[in-house]
């Protein structure tokens, strides 16, 4: 789950990372009030869960209350990479003397945190790594010992920082690592961290993603993952406990596994476009599949549904009953084709057939999808 900048900023501040004063506003009038409280000049920043705000005009400075209001009005009407902007952050403008990049993320292959420090702040770290690799210092951190002050200081020295600057950056890096660990983050990033003309150090941006699987142990976070899903169908998917990804095609896909679901999408995509990806996870029941059918059938422009049911951990024969019950209560003209393999495959096929659902007899998913294509083209 990605956090908004103001949410991450609050968490950074709670660990002692210096963050400039800011307020959050959801109307132009509120932005004006906020700017008056903070004092000019201010920067008005769009709060959206994507990068590229600056280029889209989502970050602008204001010298007066009128200007702050006007900029906020414009930003709150805009969309950035397709996402509407519902809130802005109003923050004290800093006079920047030097910029740095500080980040902590997970090295999936090594299976440990990796801490990155660069003296090229304000640009993407991927870009710096490509153009000026000598300006990027990165260290894999043993998770049992963590990134202590001494290790952080070594990184600062490696980045050719000296004196007080080196000590300050090391301290903030150490604190950023603590935020990362404390909140089960997958990314914690400050880009840029700046030294101001007055010699203060400030985090001028705050980016954080928290591992969804860890939310059970962070009841203190006043943040709900559902709130940040833009598609109403995707939100419903999350509510019933499945992964639904809305797509712009016409063939609905229901799969009892993620890998199989992606492969099914690839196969469907040869001739038609998938309307959605839906993966049930390992906890299916009659009720769940009933709700899954209800969800997938809501998509506008749907022309067919392919169900790929593999019985490993899942009792697919139970799921089949839910599919049949939904279709009996909501008869439809569009072709619905189901494939069932694995544990309880015979029982599942029987439940589906007796309920009037077309069942694939072939072994491979490709053959099942071809059968659906034939039905879409009006052939038996």
């Amino acid at each position, binding site marked *: 789950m990605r956090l908004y900048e103001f949410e991450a900023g609050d968490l950074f501040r709670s660990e002692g990372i210096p963050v400039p004063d800011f307020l959050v506003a959801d109307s132009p009038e509120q932005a004006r009030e906020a700017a008056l409280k903070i004092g000019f000049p201010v920067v008005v920043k769009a709060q959206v869960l994507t990068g590229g705000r600056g280029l889209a005009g989502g970050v602008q400075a204001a010298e007066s209350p009128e200007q702050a209001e006007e900029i906020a009005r414009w930003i709150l009407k805009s969309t950035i990479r397709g996402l509407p902007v519902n809130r802005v952050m109003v923050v004290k403008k800093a006079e920047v003397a030097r910029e740095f990049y500080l980040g902590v993320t997970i090295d*999936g292959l090594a*299976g440990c945190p990796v801490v990155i420090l660069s003296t090229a702040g304000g640009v993407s770290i991927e870009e710096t790594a490509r153009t000026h690799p000598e300006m990027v210092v990165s260290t894999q951190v043993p998770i049992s010992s963590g990134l202590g002050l001494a290790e952080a200081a070594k990184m600062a020295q490696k980045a050719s920082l000296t004196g007080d600057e080196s000590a300050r950056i090391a301290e903030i890096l150490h604190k950023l690592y603590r935020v990362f660990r404390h909140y089960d983050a997958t990314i914690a990033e400050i880009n840029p961290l700046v030294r101001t003309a007055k010699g203060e150090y400030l985090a001028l941006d705050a980016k954080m993603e928290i591992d969804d699987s860890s939310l059970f142990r962070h009841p203190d976070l006043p943040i709900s993952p559902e709130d940040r899903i833009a598609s109403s169908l995707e939100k419903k998917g999350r509510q019933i406990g499945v992964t639904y990804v809305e797509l712009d095609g016409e063939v609905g896909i229901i799969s009892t596994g*993620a*890998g*199989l679901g992606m*492969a099914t*999408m690839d196969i469907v995509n040869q001739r038609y476009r998938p309307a959605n990806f839906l993966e049930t996870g390992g906890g299916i029941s009659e009720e769940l599949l009933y709700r899954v059918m209800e969800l997938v059938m809501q998509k506008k422009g749907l022309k067919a549904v392919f169900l790929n049911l593999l019985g490993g951990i899942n009792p697919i024969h139970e799921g089949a009953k839910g599919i049949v019950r939904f279709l009996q209560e909501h008869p439809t003209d569009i072709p619905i084709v189901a494939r069932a393999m694995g544990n309880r495959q015979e029982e599942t096929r029987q439940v589906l057939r007796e309920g009037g659902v077309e069942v694939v007899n072939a072994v491979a998913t490709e053959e099942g999808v071809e059968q659906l294509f034939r039905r879409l083209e009006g052939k038996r």
Partner: protein
Amino acid sequence: MSILLNNKTRVLVQGITGRVGRAQTKWMLEYGTNIVAGVTPGKGGEEVEGVPVYNSVAQAVAERGAEASVFFVPPPAVKAAAIETIDAGVSLIVVVTEHVPVHDAMEIKAYASERGVRLLGPTSPGIITPGEAKMGIMPGNMFQPGRIGVISRSGTLAYEICVDLAAAGLGQSTAAGMGADPVTFTSMSELLALFDADPGTDLVVIVGEVGGRQEEHAAQFIARQMKKPVVAYVAGHSVPEGKRMGHAGAIVQGNMGTTKSKMSALQKAGVKVAEYPRDVVKLVQNQLK
């Protein structure tokens, strides 16, 4: 022959008294797995499908000689259970549990590697040596004994590929599910090395998917030292950028984690790469000629 598991392996089931644990224990026993004990704290003295249940792993190891363990433990309890199991001297742990916090996975991985213990997962479908034994949730009827090694990030896609192979008379020596999370306990390259050394395996099939760098890293390993032929399929050509596709690790971010990157790295390493799951069969047949 096989890797990691055979019908002699003395298997422990953790979380055996739960709904999934019970159901899967029955399937594993029917398949021939040598399950010697179960563990659920507080349920010691019970029996599940005739298998004695203990309160602790240490007891199960001391009294029943358990040497490998499969987890049907809820996500918040996985870290403590893994540490207990590693400390008790079990040498193979299969974590079927989904939604294990990734920071816990990093801690478990570090703890296990310091002690030389092999884990698969998290979110692993398990491991199966067809005709002998299985630890995990793989449906036995989709596999067949033979000489193809299979490594998969996804469970259902491993079943899909193996049933296609089996239909063409191509059985498997072992199929190992490495799991679909961003941090996996054992890498694709490590599993390739095990299959390369297994006299019962002639060829290895990699079943990959979008996200992460496992396939790219495996390609480097293959180019450097793999002796046996490798065939691969990578799912997700059609997935949109920035969306997590059901698995925590299955996400394309910019140019990172795309099927294109994975397929071209594997092809450069000499791997035959299938565009769709069923094509794996033809590529395997050609390689074995």
